[in-house]
């Protein structure tokens, strides 16, 4: 990331001559400090001038010892210059900041989450209700004074309810039927709840309730040493667990200022691309399954099992692998593993062709998906779409190209884009991405660099077991690292990788101790799912299922 603070300062001093802005470049991130009343004008300025077009997330943080205890961070991204900017403001208890939903609609759920977790007030937000915790929950869980293990029971489920919409005018002449779908419903994959009002077969209005799988990832991260957080990240997007490991470790490694060796980078790319393939298998397969096409799901699951076998050979676990460590990998792959990956690539090519034969020209599939859930590129950006769902609208944004890491820039692969952003295009983009992932895998697995699989920094990586048991130096090193943990310098950063479903970002605050002070995840499907009520309104009930499946919602990262 480049230092753009000088440009920003000039730009802002022209627009807001009366204000002074504190702009700094720390740990590779551009940070702009503003007062709460300046947040919305500055955000609007950035959006209107086009310097930043994405609002990636809104994160809160709590510093109880400070006079103004809350931080609110707005993470901006430009799809033109690929620059990032973090806008920060401080709030005291009881103060409020104007809502950013008037600038970016995608701020909606992120602000609700801040309210739920910290009690931060966003003035003018139309639906400032709890979003992740249940409605009977008292207090705000991510405040530092809330104990991590204090449970509060929920005795009843919420009745059907809808968001406040100032533009909604009830029509007394219509005979509307309320309909509740989920959270226990085969098409909602376990934990999503959709509430709708039907006008015949048409959705008159819709609402969603999430949080049924809110397992307090962020609080758990604050109470565990850096390396012990890795298994928790596995369970964010459990359909492609290694990608979350990589994203998290990449953020911590940046905080520590270390670079992992080439071999570890290659293994991480292989893990990521294998995960991308199996994630798309679940998404496309389940999407088709929900619409009645069972064969593709059953057939593709065979290939998923093959990847499980590869993971099992690597570390013993099938699904939640926790293979990365801060500083590299946990261990070397076994003999011949890379050849097995190449063998899998060959088989998977066949599998993708089979999938295309089953679905791409299938009349029923086309009729159920083409034109359904279409969204324009502008709207998608407005909501904060990333990943295949964004690319299907025609925006070619892939962090592997835009902000390459681990040597993606040296690899030869294409970024597929769609045109209409409907369910069918999302499907096509995912299928093509599977092909491109196979291409990447073949390039990397053929030329794996030699050398070590991890860095050997004594303050970060545990020594080899033979050293721990074999000599006193190794034993002491092991002992000290386990007791103290690895300790990044105090500071904060935002780091993102291209996960299967879009931009997976980690906002990490370190206070110099052995545990993260704050770890906020920017889950791709959280931003995508908040547009769901608007996408289904006016459509048929049956299309709800098609659209839901195409968004690839993984409750683990949606609710965290």
């Amino acid at each position, binding site marked *: 990331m480049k230092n753009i603070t000088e440009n920003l300062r000039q730009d802002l001093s022209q627009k807001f001559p009366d204000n002074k802005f504190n702009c700094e470049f720390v740990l590779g991130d551009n940070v702009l400090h503003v007062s709460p009343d300046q947040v919305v004008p500055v955000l609007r300025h950035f959006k209107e001038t086009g310097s930043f077009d994405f609002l990636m997330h809104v994160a809160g943080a709590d510093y109880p010892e400070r006079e103004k205890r809350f931080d609110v961070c707005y993470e901006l991204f430009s799809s033109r210059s690929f620059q990032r900017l973090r806008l920060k403001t401080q709030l005291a208890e009881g103060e409020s900041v104007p809502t950013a939903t008037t600038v970016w609609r995608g701020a909606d759920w992120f602000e609700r989450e801040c309210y739920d977790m910290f009690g931060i007030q966003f003035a003018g937000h139309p639906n400032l209700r709890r979003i*992740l*915790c*249940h409605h009977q*929950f008292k207090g705000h*869980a991510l405040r530092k004074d*809330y*104990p*991590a*293990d*204090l*449970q*509060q*029971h*929920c*005795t*009843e*489920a919420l009745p059907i309810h809808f968001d406040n919409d100032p533009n909604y005018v009830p029509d007394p002449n219509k005979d509307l039927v309320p309909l509740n779908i989920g*959270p*226990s*419903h*085969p098409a909602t*994959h*376990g*934990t999503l709840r959709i509430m709708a009002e039907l006008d015949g077969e048409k959705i008159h209005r819709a609402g969603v309730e999430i*949080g*049924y*799988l*809110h*397992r*307090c990832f962020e*609080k*758990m991260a604050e109470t565990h040493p850096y390396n012990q957080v890795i*298994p*928790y990240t*596995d*369970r964010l997007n*459990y*359909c492609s*667990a290694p990608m979350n490991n990589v994203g998290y470790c990449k953020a911590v490694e940046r905080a520590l200022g270390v670079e992992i060796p080439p071999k570890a980078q290659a293994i991480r790319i292989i893990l990521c691309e294998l995960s991308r393939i199996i994630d798309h298998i*679940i998404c496309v397969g389940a999407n088709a399954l929900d619409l009645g096409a069972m064969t593709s799901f*059953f057939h593709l*699951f*065979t290939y*998923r*099992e093959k990847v*499980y076998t590869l993971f099992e050979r690597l570390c013993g676990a*099938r*699904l*939640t692998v926790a293979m990365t460590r801060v500083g590299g990998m946990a261990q070397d792959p076994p003999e011949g593993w890379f050849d097995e990956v190449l063998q899998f690539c060959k088989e998977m090519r066949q599998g993708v062709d089979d999938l295309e034969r089953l679905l791409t020209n299938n009349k029923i599939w086309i009729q159920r998906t083409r034109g359904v859930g279409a969204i324009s590129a502008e709207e998608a950006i407005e909501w904060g779409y990333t990943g295949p769902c964004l690319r299907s609208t025609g925006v070619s944004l892939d962090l592997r190209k835009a902000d390459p890491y681990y040597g993606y820039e040296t690899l030869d692969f294409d970024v597929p884009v769609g045109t209409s952003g409907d369910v069918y295009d999302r499907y096509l983009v995912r299928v093509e991405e599977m092909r491109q992932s196979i291409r990447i895998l073949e390039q990397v697995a053929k030329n794996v660099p030699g050398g070590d699989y991890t860095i050997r920094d004594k303050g970060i990586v545990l020594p080899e077991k033979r050293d721990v048991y074999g000599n006193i130096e190794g034993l002491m090193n092991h002992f000290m690292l386990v007791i103290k943990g690895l300790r990044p310098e105090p500071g904060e950063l935002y780091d993102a990788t291209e996960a299967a479903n879009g931009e997976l970002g980690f906002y990490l605050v370190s206070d110099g101790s052995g545990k993260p002070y704050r770890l906020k995840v920017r889950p791709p499907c959280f931003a995508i799912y908040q547009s769901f009520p608007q996408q289904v309104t006016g459509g048929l009930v049956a299309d709800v299922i098609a659209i839901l499946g195409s968004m690839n919602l993984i*409750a*683990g990262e949606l609710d965290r």
Partner: protein
Amino acid sequence: MSEASVKQQPSPAEPKGSDRQLVEETRSFAFTTRIDKIVAWGRKNSLWPMPYGTACCGIEMMSVMMPRYDLARFGAEVVRFSPRQADLLIVAGTITEKMAPIIIRIYQQMLEPKYVLSMGACASSGGFYRAYHVLQGVDKVVPVDVYIPGCPPTPEAVLDGVMTIQKMIEDNVPRPWRDNWEPGVYR
């Protein structure tokens, strides 16, 4: 029908004459057993699971249903998403406080006789989520018959859990946890 599940009962006195002929003829196409045995045999081999997959375990449960592990071999392939048609609740994944009232209702909607399989560490005890919004085991709100360890359990372990339930049904194991259960009471 396996011989283990249905044992021939010793006949009392040997009948004579035409009676004897009738009994022998009957034995060629019928056998005797106890009613609870034959009912248990039927139940155990036609479990209809209601998959309550909420998280990672739900994905592993898919593997159990899929071709490689194939739960159909145990007579449990009719996956029912309606609790009213199912008799085996497989709780696969973390149950949060927000989800608790819903799983109680799902359990109540199932018809007797019904069984609960708690799959994985989260459903069994909250797992490594000792956290403010996670129910510390689904057995706090519904009676669990079999717990499967693992995070997530391997498909083999899930098959083992299903077989354990089958054994419980076959042996008519008393289930006090089920008999003393009350809805809405946190244990």
